[in-house]
């Protein structure tokens, strides 16, 4: 297959990742190079039947796996910002247009 144009800046945005302009220009060379290499697997005849290894769902009962509050303190201590017993998160939905 032909090598696609890679919009590194758009990818970085999708991945929620700040990447400097210098690094973007470097990655514009490197990533197509990597993709060109991995595209060699198009030539593999194995798997052309689309067969995949069997997958199974692993479920657990919808109940508390441990007593409530057991890890609250230690998990809150790990949070960068907290408000009482809550992890503080910036507003996600804004009214501003």
């Amino acid at each position: 297959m032909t090598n696609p144009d890679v919009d590194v800046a758009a990818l970085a945005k999708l991945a929620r990742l700040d990447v400097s302009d210098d690094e973007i220009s470097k990655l514009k060379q490197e990533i197509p190079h990597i993709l060109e290499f991995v595209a060699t697997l198009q030539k593999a005849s194995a798997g052309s039947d689309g067969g995949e290894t069997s997958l199974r769902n692993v479920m657990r009962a919808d109940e508390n796996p441990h007593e409530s509050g057991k890890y609250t303190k230690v998990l809150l201590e790990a949070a960068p910002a907290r408000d009482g017993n809550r992890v503080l998160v910036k507003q996600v939905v804004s009214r501003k247009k």
Partner: protein
Amino acid sequence: MDLTKLTIASARKALDAKEYSALDLTKAYIDQISQKDAALHAYLEVWEKSAKDEAKRADARIAAGEALSLTGIPLAIKDNILIEGRAASSASKILENYRAPYDATVIERMKQEDAVFLGRTNMDEFAMGSSTENSAYGPTRNPIDTARIPGGSSGGSAAAVAAHMALAALGSDTGGSIRQPAAHTGLVGLKPTYGAVSRYGLMAMGSSLDQIGPLTKTVDDSKLLFEAIRGYDASDSTSLKESAKDFKKPRVIGVPRAFLESGVDADLLTVFEKTLGALREKGYEIRDIDMPTLPYGLAVYYVVMPAEASTNLARFDGIRYGLSEPAPTIGEVYAKTRGKGFGPEVRRRILVGTFVLSAGYADAYYRKARAVRAGITREFADAFQSVDAIAVPTTPAPAFKFGEKTSDPLAMYAEDIFSVPVNLAGVPAISVPCGHVARESSQLPIGFQIIAEHGREETLFAIGKDVEAA
């Protein structure tokens, strides 16, 4: 006690015979670390005080006659395995101040035996690399030749054991990260059957590929440590209830000849062939086998792994734990935190992973890779119909020099060509030292890799011991 000759097995005997105490043993290792680690940088943190306390507890247990296989054995732990209350950073800036809120299952098992934890070892950031050059805290040096890399990503664990700064160590292997550093430092490295050892408390890179395993000086020690950490764990959804198959003495070893033409150093191949010859003399039949899909393993791996890694690393967002960069909106908090906290190789893999999963490309890359992966798995299953094990070199070349491959990601990735198919198929494999090749003034060790069917680690240990004796 001579630390250069000590193994878990021989230390066990000496401890139980009261030739020296666990505290003496731990102090001897702490002493080695303080003498050598400034030059090697195998450890990110050494836990001198708690290690001595753990050794005292072990001594009490030994005195009571209740010692288990790891009681009082000083071990090093890779920095992506959680120990409650201790720092665990995966050698990343994004987790510089993170402390583990719970024990990984493997750690819990070792604590039950009163093992001693000497410290956490350096690695490529989030286990992404083959040299430890991707650590955010500087590389580890190979004790055999300090101008060279110790391999990666479990390079710190390998250097710690090879330089006698730990009796054994735990690493993790996603595409060769235990076997390759073991090969480059003259150790035995085991990647267990996928699901044999719990991944609970191991920071995930490629969840369908990752396994924790031992780096040790001998095959016997590898078996000992594997047996201590293996077993079903309800906290890991891919843990196997019964992974081990009944042992049958291995007799036929297959060699995928065409695969060896993928670019191996000539003198390394000579050492490999010599080892095959020695095994033949011991009564094994060495048989050429055809596995035409194996050469695609590397391409499959560099699609599947970044896809899984980019998904796994989405959790590092500056909200619940780790680094958090202040910014006006939540989207900017994510992007700034991740941009600052992740190193260049991690960023590169997140972007490649994002690409191969993106709409319009997922079919051509990710789904195709999964299909070829299934083909590789089938090819292993077919091969094991007629052979008991498969042998290939662990790496295509001996340990390289610092900086040799940092500017070309593909050259670095090629280091994994013989190790990644094993992770893709979920089968177990071991790397055992089988000789040396000369590079400049150094004699560099070579790893002989043995691969077996799911659940047949015993086959690896049996052949491994014959390689060791060859």
